[in-house]
């Protein structure tokens, strides 16, 4: 019965100061809405991130010309590497099947292909993602790997028709034989490997010698030029997705904290005004012998109700927005596959958050403005 009385008093005050109450409710609504949408975005970025991490880390494409012996030997080498957690051989036929699956509904595009242009490959999964680049580099000069550093020729990375020449300050790689160098390639001198990207298409490239260690012997037999075409890594993508996930988390939570502070202050201000408007009444209540909490409860409930009303509005908005985004993505960007945050958790987070904001706000106001 007491609670019903307090509740009535609180609602009475909410309605009487409806403009301020509305301001409080809307602030809570906005901050909880941002919290909800942030949760939705973060939930999906995380989902995507964990999906990418589970995907393959290195994919080594095998030359069409490679013999079965070469393929088996490469497989044995990979299996022997201590960094490798798991590996998987994908034949040319399987690669084709996969492509067909991923293009359901557009099979007509595949009709245009003559034969099977897809290479066979090894998919490699590592124990530690940080080793991706290092392990990948081991395949750059493997004869079985389809590393087409030189375009329009026999695709043999080791034997450059032109070769490597050096002066005191520069090294020049020449393709020779009328062929062109690939845009993205690796140059190895002895055991040092350097990556050259965005190479202007042409038959030769010059690099400053200083980029290699001073000990590099330009006349060494082991010099070679490789492209990365035959070896693909997922590491970069994973890294990027993780980075995006972290930034969304940091930026999002910063924003939510700011809005939460704003809501607390606004609710506290609303309650303060309502205390101020009723200071004479509070005085009378004290004279009649009301205990502190008898006076405080209606104000506390008023704050919590403000939070609750704002949060309820936010939940409804978030659910509507979230579902329409998910539907849109499902229809138009099939490969992304967004997913809504489970309603239960959303409700718990937002309603809980709203009520927390409300009670902190009113507690703040009571402490500062209702000294009894």
């Amino acid at each position, binding site marked *: *019965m*007491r609670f019903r*009385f307090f509740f009535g008093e609180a609602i*009475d005050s909410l309605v*009487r100061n409806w403009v301020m109450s509305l301001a409080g409710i809307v602030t809570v609504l906005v901050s909880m809405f941002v919290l909800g949408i942030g949760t939705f975005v973060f939930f999906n970025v995380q989902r995507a991130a964990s999906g990418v991490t589970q995907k393959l880390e290195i994919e080594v494409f095998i030359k069409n010309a490679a013999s079965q012996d070469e393929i088996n030997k490469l497989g044995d080498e990979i299996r022997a590497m201590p960094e490798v957690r798991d590996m998987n051989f994908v034949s040319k036929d399987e690669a084709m099947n996969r492509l067909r699956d991923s293009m359901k509904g557009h099979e007509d595009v595949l009709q245009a292909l003559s034969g099977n242009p897809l290479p066979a490959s090894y998919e490699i999964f590592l124990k530690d993602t940080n080793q991706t680049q290092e392990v990948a580099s081991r395949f750059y000069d493997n004869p079985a790997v389809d590393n087409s550093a030189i375009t329009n020729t026999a695709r043999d990375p080791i034997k450059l028709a032109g070769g490597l020449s050096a002066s005191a300050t520069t090294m020049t790689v020449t393709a020779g034989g009328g062929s062109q160098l690939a845009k993205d390639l690796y140059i190895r001198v002895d055991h040092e490997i350097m990556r050259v990207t965005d190479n202007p298409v042409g038959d030769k490239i010059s690099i400053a010698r200083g980029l290699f260690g001073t000990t590099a012997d330009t006349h060494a037999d082991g010099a070679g030029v490789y492209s990365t075409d035959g070896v693909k890594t997922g590491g970069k993508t994973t890294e990027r997705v993780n980075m995006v996930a972290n930034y969304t988390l940091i930026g999002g939570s910063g924003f939510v904290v700011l809005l939460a502070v704003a809501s607390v202050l606004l609710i506290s201000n609303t309650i303060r005004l309502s205390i101020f408007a009723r200071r004479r*009444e509070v*005085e*009378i*209540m*004290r*004279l*009649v*012998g*009301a*205990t*502190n909490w*008898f006076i405080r409860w209606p104000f506390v409930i008023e704050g919590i109700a403000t939070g609750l009303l704002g949060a309820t509005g936010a939940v409804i908005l978030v659910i509507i927005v979230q579902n329409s985004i998910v539907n849109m993505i499902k229809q138009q960007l099939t490969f992304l596959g967004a997913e809504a945050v489970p309603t239960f958790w959303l409700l718990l987070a937002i309603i809980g958050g709203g009520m927390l904001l409300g009670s902190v706000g009113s507690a703040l106001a009571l402490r500062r403005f209702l000294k009894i």
Partner: protein
Amino acid sequence: MIRFENVSKVYDPNIVGLDGVNVHIDRGEFCFLVGHSGSGKSTFIRLLLKEFEPTKGSITVAGRNLQRMRRAALPHHRRSIGCVFQDFKLLPNKSVADNVAYALRVTGQPARSIRRKVPEILQLVGLGDKMNNLPDELSAGEQQRVSVARAFVNHPSLLVADEPTGNLDPDTSVGIMQLLYRINRTGTTVLMATHDREMVDKMRKRVIALEDGKVIRDEDKGLYR
């Protein structure tokens, strides 16, 4: 019932409210507290309600020493005293019935007994037909009756009135006085601060006169003078 022992109250910048007051009022007495504005009447009453502490001396009300009272006991102390003020001090947003009910609610009375007692006491003060009006809709005399009803609904052993007729015309004042007199007849101690000479002279009750914070006269069946 009330015992003031050598009580002094000095307000902040050296303004004397009460100066060495010794007063003893027995249970069931009807007592006037008279004096000019600023003579210390209000200070006396506010000390009784423990709105603030005396600078010196000790106050005992209904066997409780106010200086030794814990803060948590203050609401209970206030509930045991009914108060009526010159400006009524009614809650403006609540109906007459809710105003009276508030005094019962703070004591944690069950809803059923509140529903029974409120109309009863409002009938008694002659406002049975205005229960659902807001205070603003009543005349000053009626508002003071509500205030008296609220003060008496808990049946306190002491009723304190600070200039209850100060805002009322003489005829209405008589009505309020009759109410207070009837309340006194039920055994409730009544202490009334006033400067209504006619009323005091007519009633012939105990009169305590204050001037500049000192008791200058204390006599039974006294006159205002």
